[in-house]
């Protein structure tokens, strides 16, 4: 390691720009600069110093702000591309159709290309996740690379800085002054700066007033918050940390809750409401929009049970009632770290069908049959020698295949039955196929028929069950992030150096990490009060000179 020995005798590590002790510029670049680069106080930054081994190179890659910003920009562009078409989770894919076909149907050739490039599921793609991972590494590396030297140098800063350091600050001023006057100025400055809430340190003939040093930690704090947040997000991939299940539950039904062992849910009622005409403001009624079309409420009234022992699903009386709740959108049922959300619904699902066994000719009834469509019985005894056997049940009848009735789904959307009817008159039984608005008699004309009477319906609630144990971690990350951003944004680190030189001059230099305008207001207040030298903003001077040279200044 090549150390750099400053004129003041301090030995600085390789890569230092400004002497850690006195602030003298050490590099040729800084020596010739009118205003020194005050980033990280001129400390040696690892990534800017070593570039030999492979580890150096990897470290330098990830700690580079250029690389970090590039990753941010690539992520940003990729994220934007992902919004050109709805992502695959928001696309309605018909049953028996694949997602690709859905993209082609909905969005044509563009949809096909989009799907084939993998853009339809961009955010779960390996490369997008890799980008986020790289961003995380970059945040960590860059923060350590710069945060550590910055912290060290601010912690160890001396009151006295070399004149060459002060002269190269953006704000600098000097004037000749008698020794006693100088001392008086320093005293006044100390008083004023303390009034302005600066911390003042003095040594013989030198003064350092400093304020809000903690503001410099803001970026590092918010980066820590971001890393905690990203860690939390990663943790959800671990089993047990994250549960995402869904449950369709009919009114009156009790079901075990997927993902929630030992818990059962009973659905009392599902309600769907729209706004009534009188609930809407007059202005709205006058507009063309359909009055009853605005949804007001989706609500499932449920009871949550916990089974007393690890038994199987039994009757609700064997279970402990632990909560009842009206689950609405924005009002999930929360229990034991789980949350149940109102996500979907189905109105008027068929519950039961009621038939009447009648003699076709006379119309005489032999009794009624009530068929529960979720669990039809095998046989219904009507007494007096009559009974009906359910030979076949097709919840969603979709037609015949090879003479056999087919069902598309186990849900009773379009129920159909094959009945065998026994009566005293027809003891051998007659077979009839009954669907909605359709009766077939495949084995010959029958004397009796199952006459459709009425249906009973009920609503179905679609609930989502979530448990996310990473939420506290995400919350902590979020809070730390916000804290860091606020600290870094709403305060600025300001410093004022004053120094009486041996040849009878008073030097003034000031620095702030941002908001120079406010710093200058502080300076204006102190310079007149303490008879300090008039200062100039050397950067502004430069620009003015340039403007004048260009002849742009017509004032």
């Amino acid at each position: 390691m090549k150390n750099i020995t400053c004129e003041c005798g301090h030995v600085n590590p390789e890569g230092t720009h400004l002497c850690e002790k006195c602030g003298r510029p050490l590099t040729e670049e800084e020596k010739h600069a009118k205003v020194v680069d005050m980033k990280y106080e001129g400390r040696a930054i690892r990534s800017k110093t070593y570039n030999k081994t492979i580890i150096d190179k990897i470290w330098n890659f990830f700690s580079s702000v250029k690389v970090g910003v590039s990753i941010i920009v690539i992520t940003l562009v990729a994220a934007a591309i992902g919004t050109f078409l709805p992502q695959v989770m928001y696309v309605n894919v018909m049953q028996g159709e694949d997602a690709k076909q859905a993209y082609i149907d909905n969005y044509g050739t563009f949809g096909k290309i989009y799907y084939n490039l993998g853009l339809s599921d961009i955010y779960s793609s390996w490369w997008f996740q890799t980008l986020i991972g790289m961003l995380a590494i970059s945040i960590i590396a860059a923060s350590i690379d710069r945060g550590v030297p910055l912290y060290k140098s601010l912690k160890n800063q001396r009151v006295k800085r070399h004149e060459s350091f002060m002269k190269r600050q953006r704000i600098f001023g000097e004037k000749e002054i008698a020794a006693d006057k100088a001392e008086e100025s320093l005293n006044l400055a100390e008083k004023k700066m303390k009034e302005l809430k600066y911390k003042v340190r003095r040594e013989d003939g030198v003064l350092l007033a400093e304020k809000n040093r903690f503001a410099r930690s803001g970026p590092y704090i918010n980066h820590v918050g971001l890393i905690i947040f990203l860690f939390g997000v990663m943790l959800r991939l671990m089993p047990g940390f994250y549960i995402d299940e869904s449950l369709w539950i009919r009114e009156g039904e009790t079901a075990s809750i997927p993902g929630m062992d030992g818990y059962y849910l009973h659905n009392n009622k599902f309600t769907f409401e729209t706004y009534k005409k009188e609930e809407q403001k007059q202005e709205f009624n006058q507009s063309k929009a359909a009055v009853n079309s605005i949804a007001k409420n989706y609500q499932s009234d449920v009871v949550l049970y916990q089974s007393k022992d690890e038994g199987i699903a039994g009757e609700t009386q064997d279970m402990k009632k632990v909560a009842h709740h009206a689950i609405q959108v924005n009002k999930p049922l929360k229990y034991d770290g789980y949350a149940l959300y109102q996500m979907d619904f189905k109105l008027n699902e068929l519950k039961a069908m009621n038939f009447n066994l009648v003699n076709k000719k006379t119309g005489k009834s032999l009794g009624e049959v009530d068929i529960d469509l979720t669990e039809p019985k095998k046989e219904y005894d009507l007494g007096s020698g009559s009974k009906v056997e359910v030979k076949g049940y097709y919840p969603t009848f979709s037609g015949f295949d090879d003479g056999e009735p087919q069902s598309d789904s186990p849900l009773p959307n379009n129920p159909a039955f094959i009945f065998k009817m026994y009566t005293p008159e027809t003891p051998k039984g007659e077979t009839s196929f009954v669907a909605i608005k359709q009766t077939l008699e495949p084995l010959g004309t029958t004397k009796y028929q199952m006459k459709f009477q009425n249906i009973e319906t009920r609503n179905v609630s679609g609930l989502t069950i979530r448990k996310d144990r990473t939420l506290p971690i995400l919350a902590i990350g979020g809070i730390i992030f916000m804290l860091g951003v606020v600290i870094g944004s709403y305060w600025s680190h300001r410093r004022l150096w004053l120094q009486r030189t041996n040849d009878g001059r008073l030097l003034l230099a000031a620095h702030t990490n941002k908001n120079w305008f406010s710093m200058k207001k502080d300076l204006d207040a102190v310079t007149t009060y303490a008879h300090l030298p008039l200062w100039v903003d050397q950067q502004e001077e430069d620009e003015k000179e340039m403007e004048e040279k260009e002849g742009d200044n017509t004032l």
Partner: protein
Amino acid sequence: MSLIDLSSTLLFIAFIAYLVGTLFFGGAVKGGKKDASVSNKKWGTIAITVTIIGFIANLGYFITRWIYSGHAPVSNMFEFTTAFGMFVVGAFILIYFIYKLPSLGLFALPIAILIIAYASMFPKEVTPLIPALKSYWLTIHVITAAMGESILAISAVAGLIYLMKSVDTQKRTKSSIWLEIVMYAGVLVLGFVIVTTTFKLMDYNADFTYVDKNGATQEITYNTPALFGMHEYEMKSPDKMKPLAAMPALVNAKKLTTVVWSILFGSILYIIIRLILRKSISRAIQPLTKRVNMQLLDEVGYRSVLIGFPVFSLGALVFAMIWAQEAWSRFWGWDPKEVWALITWLFYAAFLHLRLSKGWQGQKSAWLAVIGFVIIMFNLVAVNLIIAGLHSYAG
């Protein structure tokens, strides 16, 4: 007068006050002579007073509408965009009291005026809330996000003024051309407002039926003469203009028609302005920025990002995530609006890093601030109106 009428009147008063305020700010930056500063100060005082009166009226609109509708008036395009315009003025007033820069008002107020005018083109009816919006998070999330965006918008205003002053508009450079494109975009928005208002005043309605992409027949009413017809459209209002071409089911021909009308009209307006001015708009406006201190403007631009970024992070990401967890069972779902909030956030994060570590100050920083505003407006306009998603009820 009912509460809702009062609310509309207050908004109108605010609108007029902003117009008047702009003129006074114009007076505050004018004057080539060295002794202009005294009169400038007087004009500046009047201008900010008028602006504050306008802002109070604007707040009055917001509060009365809130009371009338029973929920924070940020639940649809009109309400949100108007609130955004109001917050832009609020953010300007805040920054004005830190930096006392009248030229900021000269540009911030017209932008707020355009935003509010744009908002007024959407249906103004008070509508009841759908279940997804029934939450106090609507108030918290939307208002904080809008505030953050409006403070960030002030950095774009500062950036724009910086560019006005520093870009040589007499030469044809990339910068001068892009600056003029920004001006042209502003004129296009004006074109949209004028076209929509004109046909609204004429009470233009043309009814059509069409077949949507699922094969269902739908009805639609055009409020501008139809340039493009919806998929397999049929005209129901025979005396109205016949569409020039039919569009496939994927394209919303009504919106396309409005966009094309706006571009047509805006372009004509732009040409007329150019003919009157006999120079580019940016060149014509440039003298107004002569007296500004570039260093200070650069700092204003940076400072507004610094003030706005935490507010935006809190409102558009943190609060958004909390609400999403409550309403949709997940804090993040890659919905387009969410993604564009993330994009905005990433963009300003990049802005801050470039500025801090790469020393991107001055023009570069100013351009970034303007691009940031474009992203915010894209999120407001395009994402709501074009890209369908969970947030699209706002359209």
